[in-house]
């Protein structure tokens, strides 16, 4: 079931959005909790052959980390840029 470990990475203004496709089950909970509603289904598939998620418009993502927090599978990793 586990596909080779692939990471979807998107650079956003305040950091970087990373998604581990071998962990994502495509439940969509993060999509609903995103305060900017910027997550959409990705072309890449997750653990169960369901679509993973990716920011629609990288400019909209504020790297708040709510999607990382609510993900039951820890599939999302938000790297925040250090504030100068």
């Amino acid at each position, binding site marked *: 079931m586990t596909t080779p470990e692939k990471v979807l990475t998107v650079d956003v203004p305040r950091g970087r959005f990373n998604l581990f496709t071998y962990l994502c089950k495509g439940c*969509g909970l993060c999509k609903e909790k995103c305060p900017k509603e910027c997550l959409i289904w990705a072309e890449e598939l997750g653990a169960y052959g*369901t679509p993973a998620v990716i920011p629609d418009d990288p400019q909209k993502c504020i790297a708040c980390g709510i999607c990382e927090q609510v993900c039951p599978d820890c599939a999302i990793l938000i790297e925040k840029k250090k504030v100068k």
Partner: protein
Amino acid sequence: MSATQPILQPRMPKSWYKANKPHLFCPGCGHGMVLKALGEAIDELGIQSKTIFGCDIGCSLLAWNFLDVDSTQTHHGRTTPVMVGIKRANPELVTVAYMGDGGGYAIGSQHTVNAAIRNEKITVILVNNTNYGMTGGQMAPTTLPGQRTETTPYGRDPEETGYPTRGPEMIAAIAPEGAYVARGTVANLRQLKGYIKKALENQMAGRGFSFVEALSLCPTNWRTNAKDTWAFLEGKMAQYFPVGELRVPKQKEE
């Protein structure tokens, strides 16, 4: 990208057993979030090496190799007395009984109630998803009035089956001094983690019974999409089951 760049690793709690991830729970299941809160609480308290994790029958048994701690599995709420036995034999250990609402409120309620009355120094984490998830979504003691399940196709009728169990309120009413009772929700994980942490600290301080109920999600058996899943948890469920701390030991406030 240079070859020396470290390979990205998911940010999982240290106490998670990484070899069985992705875990066995359904997509969108709340167990993953409750166990994330528990794992982070264990990490922050640094008690991974002396924690005993006991899971119950039902969906919660799928957590049998979820955490990288000593684990055991029993049936129908018996995880509470098993944890009591382990705690009595080895008082230096931290024992966590992890169960669902079926195990804790229905068939195993005798154990929950009596452990609370005896003020056993264990922590009970009860995940409430308003149905019996593993067997296909039958009515549980916590099913809300009017909620459709496999065995209540026209919605639960309180005239016939009574009103849902409010577990923490019951435990708070019967537990002696020193007990910690709270209800959290996976919609507010930071708060839930705080409750779990306080419950573990209460046990480590030897004050008494610690009980945390976590309102959880079950999109598979509620037959809801992600939007309706959150709406049900934050709307109807949070309305019937108010979130907050019901009993805090007095020593803590001084």
